């Protein structure tokens, strides 16, 4: 098992290097314009361009520039570790901005993940156990609605109904636990969590249902029943475990993607996460911020892949010997 994890870790490092390399090429080598001018923001004066050139070592050959770039990211820069650079638009070090926003995105993503797992998997199980029943039809109707309703539609709709019209939920914005207490923090996150979770819950319900129905038709399930195991044990121990492995894969990728920024949800609910920051940075042409977010998003997807691989190895021993 240890060797397997080490092998996966080496692979993750390699993938991260590939991500940084591709990002570097896109931002520094491919543009036809001098990258120093592009990174200097809206007012690229010669002095500012010179400052950028010096900071990025752009007077070196590009392989050296790339090596310096990777070194800054992994070993840190003058603003600390990890080396996330400087925004020439806001004249601010990016590390504190991005880390504080990342923390907000993590709260949003993890909260939503809990909600969608709590909704999606039980619905999927119950639907699979009673296929074509009224519950199944209603549940799959809900799933169809969840899959079809985009966040940019359902988010403002929820805000309008539950905050603006009914006044039963607080409005948009982020209120930290430390500053405003658990109650305020929680109440402001409920709607974003639910809205974000709806889409995923619908997918998870459908996927769990389909997998479980298929699993429950397998020979070994029939054998388990023939051995006189209780239905509860058959379903939970034998059926669910096998049917959840693809769900674990999906969960890892979904969570990894969300940690890289829930762009629309954060924008709609005015949550200062990394996704909203990405949109703001694209709008204001803050390229170093965009570069950082690209790499961070890549990192999370890679990292969550690693977590999924390890979990898989636990769930299915065949994987670790493959």
């Amino acid at each position, binding site marked *: 098992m240890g060797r397997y994890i080490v092998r996966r870790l080496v692979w993750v490092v390699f993938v991260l290097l590939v991500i940084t390399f591709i990002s570097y090429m896109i931002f520094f080598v491919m543009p036809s314009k001098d990258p120093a001018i592009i990174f200097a923001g809206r007012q690229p*004066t010669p002095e500012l361009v010179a400052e950028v050139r010096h900071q990025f070592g752009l007077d070196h050959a590009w392989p050296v520039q790339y090596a310096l770039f990777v070194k800054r990211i992994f070993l840190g820069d003058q603003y600390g570790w990890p080396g996330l650079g400087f925004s020439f*638009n806001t004249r*601010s070090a990016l590390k504190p901005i991005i880390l504080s926003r990342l923390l907000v995105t993590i709260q949003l993503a993890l909260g939503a993940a809990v909600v969608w797992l709590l909704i999606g998997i039980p619905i999927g199980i119950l639907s699979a156990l009673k296929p074509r029943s009224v519950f199944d039809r209603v549940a799959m109707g809900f799933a169809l609605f969840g899959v079809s309703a985009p966040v940019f539609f359902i988010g403002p709709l929820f805000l309008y109904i539950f905050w603006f019209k009914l006044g039963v939920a607080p*409005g948009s914005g982020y*209120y930290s636990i430390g500053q405003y207490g658990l109650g305020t923090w929680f109440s402001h996150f409920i709607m974003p969590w639910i809205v974000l979770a709806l889409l995923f819950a619908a997918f998870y319900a459908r996927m769990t249902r389909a997998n479980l129905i298929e699993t429950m038709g397998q020979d070994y399930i029939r054998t388990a029943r023939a051995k006189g195991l209780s239905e509860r044990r058959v379903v939970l121990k034998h059926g669910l475990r096998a049917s959840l492995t693809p769900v674990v894969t999906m969960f890892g990728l979904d969570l990894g993607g969300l940690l890289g920024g829930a762009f629309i949800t954060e924008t709609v609910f*005015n949550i200062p996460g990394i996704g909203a920051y990405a949109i703001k940075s694209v709008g204001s042409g803050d390229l170093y911020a965009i570069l950082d977010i690209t790499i961070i998003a890549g990192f999370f997807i890679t990292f969550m892949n690693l977590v999924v691989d390890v979990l898989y190895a636990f769930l299915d021993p065949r994987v670790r010997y493959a």
Partner: protein
Amino acid sequence: MNFKRTARLFAVVGVLAIVATACGGDEGGGASPTGGAVAKGGTYRTAIEDFGFTNAFDPTGEYLGTAWGLYSDLILRNLVTYKHIDGVPGDEIVPDIAESWETSADGLTWTFHLKSGVQFGPPLSRDVTSADIAYAFQRINTKSLIAQYGNYYAGVIEGLTGDAKSPSTPISGISTPDASTIVFTLTKPTGDLLYRFAMPATAPVPEEVGKCFTKAGDYGRFVISSGPYMIKGQDALDTSSCDAMEPFSGYDPDKFMVFVRNPNYDAATDSPDVRSANLDGVVITIDTNTDDIFNRIQSGELDGSWASLPPKTLEQQYLTNPDLTDNFHINGGDRTWYITMNLLVPPFDDVHVRKAVNFVIDKVALQKVWGGPPHGEIATMPEPPEVLPETAQLDPYPSPNHEGDVAAAQDEMKQSKYDSDGDGQCDADVCNNVLLVNRNSTPHVDMSPILSENLAQIGINVKIRELDTGTAYTTIQTADNLIGIASNAGWGKDYADPYGFDFFIFHSAGIACSGQVNYSELGMSRAQAAECGPKVLAAWNAATDNGKTPLPSVDKKMDECYTLTGDERSNCWVELDTFLMEEAVPWVPYLWATVFTVTGDSVTHWEFDQFSGALSWAHIAVNNGIDPNSVPVG
């Protein structure tokens, strides 16, 4: 007030009345909706999608109008300033830190005497002196600080070139004989100097703090107040060393700005006509969702908008519901939207074609796609009415109801070299597939079919390229792209003298190979063309018959207007603008834009600041009784 001044006032009042009538609503500003006395206290809470500062809020280089409002209304005082009210009266210069001033007979020496008792906020808590004002100019003179409108001072004040290596370098044309006197020596008489001295970059900067920030934008989180408010947390600044200074807690460029009262502000040194300072504070937060901002205003969570455009559905509500009209404010934005034509690019190198385009455009249709009269009055001249009221009624290319005059346009086209058979239609190849640059967002995209159809009536068949706002600007700002016609651009004043509107956009100094704003290349010289490469030079040679017929230029006339003052100055600008539209014809101006502001019921006194083109922080009042320190900012 002399006759000319009165005429200016009436002209603008007329224009505003038309806008107000059209939208069925608003006011020129100033009246309290409640009709009662304005109560002090409370906090104006607002939100915006993004601050959008161009220089990280460092006043030396910050070039965003809404930022200028924050400086001038709230935290910075200048030698002279504005009353921070609506319309032409809001563009009049009044004393601020300066008690009085005198000018030498030749107009080259200006001496200002400062009021006593104007203080910086804590922890500095000392009098503002002439040295602090001189230091602000030294910052403008420092190359690394990128004073984005430094051209209004470079070459104007003796020794101020914009090339200094350090802000500690003195300027030969500025002397401070004592702490309350500052003397400026100019290189040439400058008729609008007071307007330039009302700009935020010239507001006093204490050297003991300013010296720590020598890169553009860095001072933006440390702006020391000399006005009635300060950024929250300024008083906690550790000034023992540069390394000890931490950004003020009340400004996170990414999330919020909080202004609280400056305890050292002495209202006796100011005028209530200039700053009523009714509020206890201002809280501006970032809200990425525009709909949410306006919902929060309606729910009472916010007191009003600042610079966000309300969603269409909400705008209609405010325009049509009589109960809401008091909460909806429409004011002149001192901005002109226009179509620009490049004098180097056929067929627009022929003045008759440019005139024909002016005749044929259906400006009413364009106004409609913008949202009708509330969004702006139809423009007939480049200058917005508040900037040059004398030209507001001129219309060199009249048409019935501004819907375009096809016959007059075709008559012009007949006189052009591109209509060989005299049928009023351009029949040259250069009139086919003419590239027209536009934005890819509303309302611009909705203008595309109108422009296409209008121009086809004189034989110009356009191929429209719709680009995002930034790319569209970059495309026409790059000289060797040689874009013939573009409808993406708008232009606003820097200050309320026509020079502050016209200089960059029409003077040949506004031409550059990249980043230019004189998109039509008006007055481009051979040297400028050559600098931008062989393609531009070839186009210039073709357009000028190898220099025999130079491109029309307003440079000389602008230089003439530059030194004048009073009515002579206004008349000079009228002549210049008339020449622009009748002989040079680089533009089709089509809309003088308005600014919308929505306020909640807590606002007891509304005012608009014509200088910044946004609500007047200096005079607005609320009755919410909220302490700015208690407002959650996330």
